[in-house]
């Protein structure tokens, strides 16, 4: 009996030591494999979304997270020019709330935003249990164990990169927005037909958005839920679901699919792909409307006259060139 107890204890101790060594190795490898810059060439995933690393420390006041609807429909440069607010879109294609949470944690390592805008479409993305586990891991331990994200960098790893500290140099003029001047109209029926029915928000999304809310509260950040106009991914049932979700948590929610005349929105000119995503024209209209809302409800500083932010004016000029205005 005593012998078997000792054997069991020895097995448990050995297992713990083995796991500890493995963890240390993974942490070391994560440091070695992680891109040391945020340029495309450095191998970082979604360089546009991670441009905040190279913005001056604590210079971004508004952060937008979410999926492609967010990086297509929100224009930080428009917000800057019209209101003088500094913002960054750290949205990614198919980003789900767990991805938004992970991104927010990365943002907080170098920025101190006053407001986080979460685009809500990603809350309805269906993910299986396996994906949820991976997402949960990434949102909690994704940064220290970045070897799981960047393991494929072994192909391009240079010795000089292995041990040096990260130094971020990318400069994203659009501050994370994806520009598209393409116009493809949506000429179908009105998709926001009023109903009392509600879609179900997947429980994992609910749990994760609650975590985002918690993180924001811990850091004194306001959280705003926002839905960009999108015919193909949005409807009234989803509106009702998010409205109820927001009400239960006392969070503000703006659904830009309702009363689109408020911001002069036109599906025949403002979409790049027939009603799924906005083009730059649509993004400008939407962002100006959001800016008015922010001006009314939040106390965000206007930096347009601040010489420390003069580079934003330069970026705005470049942005205008890119959108061909």
């Amino acid at each position, binding site marked *: 009996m005593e012998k078997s107890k000792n054997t069991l204890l020895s097995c448990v101790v050995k297992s713990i030591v*083995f796991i500890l060594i493995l963890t240390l190795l993974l942490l070391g490898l994560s440091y070695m494999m992680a891109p040391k810059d945020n340029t495309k060439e450095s191998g970082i995933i979604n360089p546009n979304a991670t441009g905040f690393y190279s913005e001056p420390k604590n210079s971004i006041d508004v952060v937008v997270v979410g999926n492609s609807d967010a990086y297509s429909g929100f224009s930080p440069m428009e917000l800057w020019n019209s209101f003088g607010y500094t913002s960054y879109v750290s949205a990614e294609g198919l980003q789900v709330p767990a991805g938004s949470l992970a991104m927010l944690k990365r943002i907080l390592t170098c920025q101190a935003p006053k407001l986080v805008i979460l685009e809500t479409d990603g809350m309805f993305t269906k993910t299986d249990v396996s994906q949820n586990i991976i997402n949960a891991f990434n949102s909690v331990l994704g940064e220290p164990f970045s070897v799981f994200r960047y393991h494929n960098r072994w192909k391009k790893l240079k010795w000089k990169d292995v041990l040096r500290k990260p130094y971020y140099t990318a400069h994203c003029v659009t501050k994370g927005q994806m520009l598209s001047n393409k116009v493809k109209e949506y000429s179908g029926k009105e998709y926001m037909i009023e109903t009392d029915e509600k879609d179900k928000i997947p429980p994992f999304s609910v749990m994760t958005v609650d975590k985002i809310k918690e993180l924001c509260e811990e850091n004194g950040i306001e959280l705003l839920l926002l839905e960009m106009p999108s015919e193909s991914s949005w409807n009234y049932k989803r509106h009702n679901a998010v409205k109820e979700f927001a009400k239960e948590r006392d969070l503000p929610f703006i659904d830009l699919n309702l009363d689109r005349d408020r911001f002069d929105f036109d599906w025949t000119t403002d979409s790049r792909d027939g009603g799924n995503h906005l083009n730059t024209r649509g993004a400008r209209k939407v962002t100006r409307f959001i800016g008015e809302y922010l001006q009314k409800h939040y106390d965000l500083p206007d930096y347009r006259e601040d010489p420390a932010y003069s580079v934003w004016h330069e970026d705005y000029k470049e942005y205008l060139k890119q959108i061909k205005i």
Partner: protein
Amino acid sequence: MAYSSIVYLLPFLGAVVLLYNGMPKKYRWWVLLLASYIFYWLNSPTTLIFLLLSTAAVYLAGIFLNKIQDGFDLSKKALDKEGKKQLRKIVGWQKKAICACALLFIFGLLAFLKYYPFVSENINQFLKLLHLESTLPSLKLLLPLGISYYTLQAAGYIIDVYRGKYRADTHLGKVALFLSFFPQIVEGPIARFDQTADQLMEGNRSTYQNLTWGIQLILWGLFKKMVIADRANPFVAEVFKNYAEQSGVALLVGGVLFTVQIYMEFSGCMDIVIGSAQLFGINLPKNFARPFFATSVNDFWRRWHITLGAWLRDYVFYSVSLSKGFAKLSKKAKEKLTPFLGALIPSAAALFCVWICNGIWHGAGWKYLAYGMYYYGIMLLGMLLEPLFAQCGAKLKLNREGRAFRIVRILRTCILVVGGMTLFRAETVGAFGEIVYRIFTNFAPQHFYDGTLLHLCIDGWDFIAIAAGCAIVLLVSILQEKGYSLREQIAGQNIIIRWSVYLALILAIIIFGAYGSGYDQVAFIYGQF
């Protein structure tokens, strides 16, 4: 929930191991049964009913067979020799009828769900040729998970009971667990009742050795699947999808890489499956024995998907070759033909049945039939030409047992297998024909070195990773072929060497595995049958 997915490996398998060991010994089989049905339900909820139906059918058939046998054993004592003979004949027919009904039912389900779309489509096309208007309705049927595997296990069980190899088990849970055991339900191995059923019910606690060896085997399987097979997949998918645009070199490399992919993936999956079972102290039959060391196609099929080959041998080959009608044919052939042909023709006829079954087991389609016939043709040719080869060898004074000759035979077998795998992977028989045609007419040898191959969805580093992975597997295989048990060798080393090997394996999977950004999870090929 693929066997290589994180949800299977960590929460699912972890929870089942903990629950299994936390239960009193006599209830542990319940944990395995419940876990098996949950696993099935999570993967294929709507088709669980077919597994339950097949289980009920073979269980009831087994009970009936027992009753008939018991009745016969009881009655025969009071009968004279002639009476016993009469009764035995009646009982024989009764048993045959029950066995046939059970087989008809389970194979009927398999045939309908798996082959109806293919058969109805071909019959309709035939009717169209005859200008007949009546057609069979086209149905979209869901193929139950693992039906091709558990149906063979169920059939093997009921045939064994019928043949009197063992008595049918009266424990419904035991039969149900034997057919549904979660590690083997998706891709086999196709086990026999007397190989695994008792082990499943024993409920032995997981020992430290079972756990560590099980985990090692799972890791080795993940290495093969994620580092080699999944990394080769983009190249293979691209080449076979756009075969009409590829050069002969790309198609040839595609064929070789697919052979590597399917071996690493299937044998890797078996390592994960056998390792999973080992966590519970259950030993499943092995399905691979280093097939690329085979010196002939026959030898290859004794080493590749061993349990399928053994099933076809025991239940198709023997059933056909030992049948009365076949015995008559064999006798006539020996009387009327030369001794060589007299012996060859019965074997060839029985083998024909085996390879037809092998082909259609793999899938419903002409290419699968052609796949079976491809190997049948090679084997038949080998049997026919064997005397000629022997004569040539003698005249040329070749040492047919020598090492050099053995290597030549291994290479020849590998080439034939690559041909078979190319047919297996091609979309249709016609596509396979075009691939072969292009290999011979548009070879473009410069594509070997001008970088063309590095632009087919994988780069030079991927090729290096695949080659290095294959070299490691080859090294391990050589050692195993020479009789070394690598796991025992490693287990005998001191803790630093042991742990270094295990950590290196884990880190190799994490760093060189094809997963994450830019990679879709690749479904196991044999899980789709």
